[in-house]
């Protein structure tokens, strides 16, 4: 029994193979079955799709820490943490389901305007129809789910690209959010609460639009939105990694025909993905309304692009079939850091967009570098 130690890990691997009873014994001593190659824990970690994004997050965090120009280095304090996490939470609650949808091979360009449209629905239900806030929350989520169902149903049945279908939804919702609000709201585009008594609103605000863990060093605390962000990320990661439905998502995004042939309900999977994106938009709408006690027409317009950016920066492929929920959440963290970091850095704000571009590019470079290293390490 003689094995040439091709690499430092060679001896170990051979030992396993021998113990297995199948391996590199006898006639072809140097040949190993690559499926049996044991990889070290480090390589295995590096092969996780979210590791690149994590490295990106760490890199951007340190870069902004280095450039922090504030008097008492706020970036590394709780104040800094609260600042970028609340920014990231807004993007992240959407980036996770948008990422899942992208893994499933589809886009939702109505995701941005939906976060505003649902806030307006909530504002109208509470402010104009005087519903109990909790009932209004249910109503808002039902509204969101129906839009998602419509998006998914039309995409699946018409076989048109989701890019086109949800673009139509985007414009329709945007138009309705302007025209409808102007009509109902006596010519004003901002729906705010007038008066004082709104049943259930105080407790709903505690759950969705409040803050927690305030202390002497951080009087304003962290936004509860951040907890929702974490919850959505955990849920997304669990669905994608531990459930049959998660496997279906990868399958329909990788090759819909092959998935259908192996019995995956492609249509149902896609419709559910559109619905979960819409429900997340409903959650964001509820959160932003309870935070501000008002909603504005066209709120959320333009953000659909940033949700997709977060998912892509976090390692989801634009072509579908690959990516992770945690990665998308980390992508949202990078965007949150970028928007807050440029402020703390004290750079001339008229150059902000240039800095943002460089930061996002750096994050993706780090991500891709780590991913490629991981791919090489496998062989």
């Amino acid at each position: 029994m003689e094995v040439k130690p091709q690499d430092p890990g060679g001896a170990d691997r051979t030992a396993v193979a021998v113990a297995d009873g199948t391996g590199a014994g006898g006639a072809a001593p140097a040949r190993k079955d690559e499926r049996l190659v044991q990889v070290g824990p480090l390589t295995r970690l590096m092969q996780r799709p979210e590791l690149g994004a994590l490295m990106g997050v760490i890199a951007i965090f340190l870069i902004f820490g280095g450039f922090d120009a504030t008097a008492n280095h706020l970036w590394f304090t709780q104040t800094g943490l609260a600042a970028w996490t609340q920014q990231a939470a807004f993007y992240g609650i959407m980036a996770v389901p948008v990422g899942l949808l992208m893994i499933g091979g589809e886009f939702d360009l109505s995701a941005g305007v939906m976060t505003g449209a649902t806030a307006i629905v909530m504002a109208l239900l509470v402010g104009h129809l005087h519903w109990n806030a909790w009932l209004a929350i249910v109503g808002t989520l039902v509204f969101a789910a129906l839009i998602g169902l419509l998006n998914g149903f039309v995409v699946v049945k018409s076989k048109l690209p989701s890019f086109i279908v949800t673009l139509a939804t985007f414009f329709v919702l945007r138009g309705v959010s302007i025209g409808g609000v102007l009509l109902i709201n006596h010519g004003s585009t901002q729906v705010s609460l007038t008066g004082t008594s709104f049943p259930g609103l105080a407790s709903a605000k505690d759950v969705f639009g409040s803050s927690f863990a305030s202390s002497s060093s951080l009087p304003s605390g962290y936004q509860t939105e951040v907890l929702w962000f974490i919850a959505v990320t955990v849920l997304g990661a669990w669905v994608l990694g531990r459930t049959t439905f998660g496997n279906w998502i990868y399958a329909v995004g990788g090759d819909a025909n092959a998935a259908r042939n192996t019995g995956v309900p492609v249509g149902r999977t896609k419709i559910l993905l559109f619905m979960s994106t819409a429900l997340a938009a409903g959650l964001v709408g509820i959160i932003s309304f309870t935070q501000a006690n008002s909603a504005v027409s066209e709120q959320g317009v333009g953000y659909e692009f940033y949700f997709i950016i977060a998912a892509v920066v976090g390692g989801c492929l634009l072509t579908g079939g690959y990516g992770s929920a945690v990665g998308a959440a980390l992508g949202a963290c990078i965007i949150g850091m970028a928007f807050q970091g440029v402020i703390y850095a004290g750079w001339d704000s008229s150059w902000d967009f240039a800095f943002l571009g460089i930061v996002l590019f750096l994050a993706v470079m780090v991500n891709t570098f780590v991913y490629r290293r991981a791919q090489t390490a496998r062989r």
Partner: protein
Amino acid sequence: MHMSKKALAALLAAPLLLITACSSSSSSSSSSGTTTNAASGQCPYTFAFITHGDNGSFWSVVYKGAKDGAADLGCKLSEVYGSQQQGQAEPDDNAENAQIQDAINAHVNGIAVSDHDPSLMNATIAKAVAAGIPVVMLNAGCDPTDLAATKAITCVGQPEQVAGQQAGAQFKSEGVTNVLCVIHQSGQNLLDRCNGIAQALGTGSTCSTGSAPKSGPGCTELILSTPNAASNPQQADKQVVSYLQAHPQINAVMTLNNAIAGALITALGSGAKAKIATFDLNSTVVTDLQNGSLDFAIDQQQYLQGYLPIVTLMLYLKAHGNSVSPGQVLDTGPLIVNKNNVSTVESAINAGQD
């Protein structure tokens, strides 16, 4: 000539009086209905109303002014355009320019237009004038050079630098002189406001960018980079809050959009150390002025920026070239509104006229 000026003044005042008279009644549609009947036939003209605006709380009042003006006089509006309605986060100057050209091709009787990008639009506006179509500018481009270059009749609006100077003077009189000027979208008109503040504070002709000075007087611009800031003030104001954390020496914040001011007040809560002031009014601004969370607001009475161009165009056509403020700016602002005089503008706001 003396007589015609009097008649002109009467004509100008008549619809305004009607509006004032009817503003106490709850239904504004009935008021415009009656005046349309009374006035129909007086104004056989079709006007194009073209702006760089969106459908936010500011511009919807301008459009209401234009529509009310046309209804009261019996004029037709071919369409009320705002270039920002068409899917962009920013005003689309090329689209607006194309709309002016469309109006020329359609041979409308008159054009009301906001000259948002003079370097692009002055030539097109001059073309309209050369083609015999009278033009009244509104809201943007209200300065004598642009009026001279375009040969537009007049510009109904608020000279932005003057408005900024008044805001700066107000800050100075209150003893707060380290001002952050928050810019929510691109446009020379917004930069002019900040520059005006710097001029009133005596820190130079332009408001600077970058880090704020350790102590006042100073004017620093913060250009928001979150998407679509005016309609997403909550996201945008996270950047303002961070800026204030990083620069605790700032003692006054000037927002150029009232939604940004409202969300900033909510975001800062009771922890607000700097005084907050804003351009433009709405019902939230009124409440915030009343409870003292907002220091003052600059009112440019934008309802008139919609209404007066229609009146001016009609008179120009009807009264053989007569016009108010020819070749000069017809000011609708700035009017400083604070706790003391807020009650006077409240009813106009509630009627959608401010």
